C-alpha cells in the first residue's frame, strides 16, 4: 500500500507541474505575463526580501529608544524608514514581548504574513497544525519549538484576519551590551519575530 501511495503522490505532483507549465505558456503566449517578470519576482523573494529586514528593525528598536517608541506609535512609518514597505506589509503593527507578556502571530484562515520584513512564510506557518493550534493551544505550539513559558506569563496570540500585519519585537537577551546593530540583528531569528522562539544570547555571552 505504501508503494501505491507513493506512486499516486508522484503522479499527482507531475500533473500539478504540467498544469503550472501549461498556465505559464498560455499566459505568456497571450502576452499577459512576461517570463522575465516571473524570474524577477522569484529572485526578489529568494534573495532580497527576507527576515534579515525584520532583524534590522528589531536591532534598531533595541538600540534606539526613540525608534522603539516610533514603532509603538506608527509601525508602518517606522519600518518604512528602514526602507521596508509594500506588498503584504502595507499596514504594520508591532507587538512587544516583555518579561510578563509573550506574543505569537498566526493566520488561521490562510497564510497572512509580513512579507517586507520577514519574506515569504515557512511551510510550518502555513500548515494545518500551526493554523489550528496556535489559537487554542499556543503554549503547546511553543513547546513544539522548545520554548517553555512560565505559567504567569500572559500569552497574546494575534490572528491576522484583516490587512494588518504583525511583527513580534522580542526581548533583547542579556549579555548583549555594547553590540552594534549588525551584531544584534544576527541574533534575531525569523521564528523569534513570529513569536515561537525567544532570542538567545550569543554563545559565551550569557548574562545570566
Amino acid at each position, binding site marked *: 500500500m505504501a508503494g501505491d501511495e507513493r506512486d499516486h503522490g508522484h503522479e499527482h505532483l507531475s500533473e500539478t507541474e504540467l*498544469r503550472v507549465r501549461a498556465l505559464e505558456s498560455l499566459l505568456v503566449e497571450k*502576452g499577459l*505575463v512576461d517570463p522575465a517578470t516571473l524570474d524577477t519576482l522569484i529572485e526578489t523573494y529568494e534573495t532580497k526580501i527576507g527576515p534579515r529586514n525584520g532583524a534590522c528593525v528589531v536591532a534598531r528598536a533595541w538600540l534606539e529608544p526613540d525608534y522603539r517608541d516610533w514603532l509603538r506609535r506608527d509601525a508602518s512609518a517606522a519600518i518604512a524608514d528602514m526602507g521596508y514597505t509594500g506588498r503584504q506589509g502595507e499596514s504594520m503593527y508591532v507587538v512587544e514581548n516583555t518579561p510578563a507578556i509573550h506574543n505569537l502571530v498566526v493566520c488561521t484562515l490562510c497564510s497572512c504574513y509580513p512579507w517586507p520584513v520577514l519574506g515569504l512564510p515557512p511551510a510550518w506557518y502555513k500548515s494545518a497544525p500551526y493554523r489550528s493550534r496556535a489559537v487554542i493551544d499556543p503554549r503547546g505550539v511553543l513547546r513544539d519549538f522548545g520554548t517553555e513559558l512560565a505559567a504567569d506569563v500572559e500569552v497574546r496570540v494575534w490572528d491576522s484576519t484583516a490587512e494588518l500585519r504583525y511583527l513580534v519585537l522580542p526581548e533583547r537577551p542579556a549579555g548583549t551590551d555594547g553590540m552594534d546593530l549588525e551584531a544584534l540583528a544576527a541574533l534575531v531569528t525569523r521564528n523569534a519575530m513570529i513569536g515561537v522562539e525567544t532570542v538567545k544570547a550569543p554563545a559565551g555571552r550569557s548574562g545570566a
Partner: protein
Amino acid sequence: MNGAHDMGGMHGFGPVVAEADEPVFHAAWERRMFALQLAAGALGRWNIDMGRAVRENQPPGRYLASAYYELWLHGATTLLLQAGIVTGEELASGRSERPADPALVARRLPPERVGPALARGDRFRMDEGKPARFAPGDSVRVLNRHPEGHTRAPRYVRGHAGIVLRDHGMFVFADASAAGERVGQHCYSVGFLARELWGREAPPRDRVFVDLWDDHLEPA
C-alpha cells in the same frame, strides 16, 4: 463559508514540524506558481479577497489534501476562468486559441516595474469619513453569522464577547470585497480571553486578538 480553511481551534493535525534550513520554495513549479499568481494579479482583474475566496471555496477534503501552491494554482485558474481571460481548453493545452484583450495586454507587468510595484503594495486603507461604531475599551460580541460566501470572521470567535483594543481606521471590508464591492469600514483589534473562547481550562490571562470590521460586531 464554513470551510476547511477556517482551522482555528481544530484538533488532530498533530505537532508543528519545522524544517531546518528551509528553502523559500521547495520545487521549481512552486516558484513559477508563486510568480504567476502575482503577475496575473497585476492585471487588475481581481482583488486579494476574491483570491482568498476562490482558494477556500472547495470541498474540505480537497482543500486539506492540496499542497499550499496547489491551492494557489486552483485559485489562479479559477479567477482567470471567471474573468473570461482563458478557457478550460486553453488551460488544458497550454495553447492560446484567441488573442487576449489588448487593454489587458497593456497592463502586463514588465520586469523593471516589479520592484516599484512590490514596494508600493496594495491599497487596503480607505479615506476616513465614516464614524467608528466602537472605541477602544468597548465590549463587543461577534455576530453569530454563517455566510456561505467569504468572511474574515473565523468560526471560533462567532458569538463570543471581547474588548476592542484598537481602532485600526478605515479598511476595505474583506467580506464585501470578495464579491467585488469596495467599501470601507472601521477595522478593530478585538481581544478575547482564552477562557471565553475555549472554556475554563484555558490559562486565565491568555488572550487571542482578532481583527474584525464593524459589520462583524455588535455591542455586548
